[in-house]
C-alpha cells in the first residue's frame, strides 16, 4: 500500500486553523523557516481512510489470540478508553496548582495504595514511564541509598541471572554499575552455589524476575534473599511477570527492596503498537527518601504533590508520570477488586493447560508446572526436519494467531515463549494447541510450507538483511527508490476487517 506521502497532492488540507484578524509578529530573518517541511497534503476523509487501511494490516489483542511471552497481552477493557477521555482528565494541565487537580491526585494516591498492597512494600513513585525506566530509577535509588551510607564506591556490582530480560543489563550500565552474571541451574532456578560465590561486600544488589523468564517460580527465593541481605546488598524485582502472582505472593514478602510494576502488562494498558507504558516503582521504607519528585501525598482529605524531599534522586521524567496510563490501570484494578488473585490464578491455569497440551509435540527444557507462561523449544524440529522456531512462528500466522516470543530467553535454543494470559477462553486455547500440533506434523511432512510461511498475510517474509545493510528509515520523496510491486499493489482492495 502507498505511503501517505505518496498520496499527497499540493494544495489539499485536512483541517483548518482559526485566523484571527490580528497582525503576525515578524520572525527575524535568520530564524525564519526557508523550506517548508514536506508533510502530507490530503483532505480529511483520505487521512482517515489511510490510517484505517493501515489498521487492517495490523493485528492486536482485539483481533485475536496474542500469546507473546513476557508481554502479557491481555484484554484492554473499552470502558478504560472512555474514562481516560473524560475532559476532567484529558484537559487537565499538569502544572495547575494542586487544588485544581484533586481528582487526579486522589486517583494517583488510590493507585499507589493498591500497588503497595499488591507488592507488599511501603512507598511508591508513579513517575517512571516504562518498566525499563523503573529499573534504571530503582538502580539510581540503590546508588543514593549506598552513597548515604558511604558505600557507593565500594558496592559497584549488580548480579543478574542469564535468563534476564536485556533491559536489566542495559539498565545496569546506564546507572553506572558493573554486571555480574549468574547461571541457571538444572531446574531452571538461579544457581545458588554460583550466586553465593559471586556476592560479597562489593555487591550492590540483585535484579531478578520471579517467576523468571522461563515462567518458573524460583524455589530458592528465601535462600537468595538471605544471601543478599546477609551481604548488606539490596534486591530489585523486575515486575514483568507480576501477572502470575497477584494476591498469591508479594515481592516485598519475598525480600525485594524495590519493585517496578509494568502497568501495561499486569494492569492492562493497551500497548499501542509499542507504547505507552507505565513503570511505577514500589520501595521499602528505607529507600523512600530517595524517590523521584514529586511524590503524591495526602493531608487529611486533600492531596498534594510533595517536591520538598532533600534526598531525592531528582526527576526521571516530567511531572508526576504518564497520568492517562494511571487512569486506565486504576479502572482495571477497580473492576477486579480483590479478585486480582483470580486473575493471576486463571492466567496460571491457562498457561499450564496449554503446556499440558503441547509438551509431547515440542521439547520442554524444564519439566515443571509453569506459572503464567512457559518456554518450549523447537530444537528437535530443527535437528530432525530443519524447521526453526521462526518457521513455527511464521506458520502460526497462517492459522490466524500472533506468534509467541521466539529466541528468548537466550538459555533455551530455538525458544518459543508462550503466555496466554487470563483473558482467553478454553476454546481459544484448544484452537491454538491444535494449530501448534498441526504445525509439528507439517514440520515432518511438508517442511517447505513452514519455511515459506506466512502465506496469507499482507506481506510475505521480509528481507531484514537488506533493511539493515542499506537502511532506508525515512521516505525520500523524489529520490525515493520504489521497490517492485508497489505499482500493482495499490490497485488491490484493502485486506482485513
Amino acid at each position, binding site marked *: 500500500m502507498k505511503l501517505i506521502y505518496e498520496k499527497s497532492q499540493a494544495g489539499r488540507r485536512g483541517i483548518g486553523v482559526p485566523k484571527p484578524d490580528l497582525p503576525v509578529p515578524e520572525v527575524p530573518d535568520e530564524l525564519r523557516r526557508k523550506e517548508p517541511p514536506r508533510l502530507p497534503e490530503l483532505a480529511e476523509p483520505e487521512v482517515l481512510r489511510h490510517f484505517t487501511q493501515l489498521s487492517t494490516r495490523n493485528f492486536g489483542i482485539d483481533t485475536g489470540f496474542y500469546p507473546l511471552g513476557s508481554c502479557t497481552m491481555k484484554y484492554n477493557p473499552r470502558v478504560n478508553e472512555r474514562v481516560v477521555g473524560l475532559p476532567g482528565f484529558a484537559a487537565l494541565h499538569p502544572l495547575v496548582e494542586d487544588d485544581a487537580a484533586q481528582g487526579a491526585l486522589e486517583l494517583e494516591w488510590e493507585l499507589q495504595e493498591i500497588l503497595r498492597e499488591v507488592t507488599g512494600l511501603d512507598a511508591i513513585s508513579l513517575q517512571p514511564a516504562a518498566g525499563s525506566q523503573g529499573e534504571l530509577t530503582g538502580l539510581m535509588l540503590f546508588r543514593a541509598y549506598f552513597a548515604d551510607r558511604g558505600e557507593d564506591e565500594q558496592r559497584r556490582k549488580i548480579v543478574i541471572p542469564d535468563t534476564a530480560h536485556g533491559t536489566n543489563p542495559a539498565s545496569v550500565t546506564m546507572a553506572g554499575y558493573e554486571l555480574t552474571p549468574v547461571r541457571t541451574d538444572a531446574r531452571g532456578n538461579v544457581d545458588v552455589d554460583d550466586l553465593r560465590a559471586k556476592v560479597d561486600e562489593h555487591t550492590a544488589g540483585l535484579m531478578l524476575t520471579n517467576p523468571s523468564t522461563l515462567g518458573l517460580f524460583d524455589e530458592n527465593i528465601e535462600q537468595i534473599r538471605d544471601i543478599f541481605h546477609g551481604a548488606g546488598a539490596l534486591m530489585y524485582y523486575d515486575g514483568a511477570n507480576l501477572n502470575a502472582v497477584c494476591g498469591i505472593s508479594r515481592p516485598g514478602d519475598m525480600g525485594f527492596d524495590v519493585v517496578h510494576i509494568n502497568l501495561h502488562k499486569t494492569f492492562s494498558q493497551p500497548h499501542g503498537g509499542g507504547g505507552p507504558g507505565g513503570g511505577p516503582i514500589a520501595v521499602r521504607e528505607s529507600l523512600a527518601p530517595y524517590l523521584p519528585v514529586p511524590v503524591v501525598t495526602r493531608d487529611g482529605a486533600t492531596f498534594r504533590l510533595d517536591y520538598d524531599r532533600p534526598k531525592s534522586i531528582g526527576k526521571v521524567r516530567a511531572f508526576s508520570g504518564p497520568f492517562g496510563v494511571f487512569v486506565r490501570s486504576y479502572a482495571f484494578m477497580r473492576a477486579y477488586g480483590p479478585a486480582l488473585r483470580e486473575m493471576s490464578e486463571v492466567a496460571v491455569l491457562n498457561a499450564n493447560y496449554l503446556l499440558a497440551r503441547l509438551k509431547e509435540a515440542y521439547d520442554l527444557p524444564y519439566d515443571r508446572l509453569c506459572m503464567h507462561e512457559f518456554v518450549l523449544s523447537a530444537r528437535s524440529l530443527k535437528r530432525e526436519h530443519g524447521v526453526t522456531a521462526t518457521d513455527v512462528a511464521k506458520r502460526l500466522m497462517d492459522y490466524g494467531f500472533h506468534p509467541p516470543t521466539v*529466541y528468548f530467553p537466550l538459555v533455551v535454543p530455538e525458544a518459543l515463549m508462550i503466555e496466554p494470559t487470563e483473558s482467553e477462553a478454553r476454546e481459544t486455547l484448544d484452537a491454538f494447541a491444535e494449530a501448534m500440533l498441526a504445525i509439528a506434523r507439517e514440520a515432518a511432512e511438508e517442511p517447505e510450507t513452514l519455511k515459506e510461511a506466512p502465506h496469507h498475510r499482507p506481506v510475505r517474509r521480509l528481507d531484514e*538483511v537488506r533493511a539493515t*545493510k542499506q537502511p532506508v528509515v525515512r521516505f525520500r520523496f523524489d529520490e525515493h527508490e520504489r521497490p517492485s510491486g508497489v505499482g500493482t499493489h495499490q490497485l488491490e482492495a484493502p485486506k482485513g476487517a
Partner: protein
Amino acid sequence: MAAESYPDDLLYHPEHDWARVDGDEAVLGITWHAQDALGELVHFEPPDVGATIGKDASYGEIESVKAVSDLISPLSGEVLEVNQKVVDAPETVNEDPYGDGWLVRIRLSDPSERDQLLDLAGYRKVLDEE
C-alpha cells in the same frame, strides 16, 4: 556461503578466531563456525589503524541482523591495516572467511604468544565440545 572448512596452516583461539602469523605480523579473522553461528553479516566495526589490541580482549565487533559478537584477538599487537572490503561488504566473511574475509593485519608485540594458541587438532576439540 562457503562450505565448512578449517585450514591447517592457521592458529586458532577458542573464541572461534584465527591468526595467520608471518614473522612479526599476523592477519586475523573469524572461523567458519563463528560466521555460521552469526548468520549473514551486515556490519563490521573495526578498530582504528594504529590502535593497540590485546590478546584475549575485544578489538572490534561484527554483527548480523539479530546478533552482535565481540571480536577476540588471539594475539597482542598494533593494528597496521583494516580490511576495507569487509567494512564495505561484511558478507565477504561469510563467503570466504579465511581469504578475502580477513579482518585486520597487526604487528605483534609479543610473538611468543603464538605458542598459547591452538592448532587445528586443538580447535577441532573445542568444536566437538560445543
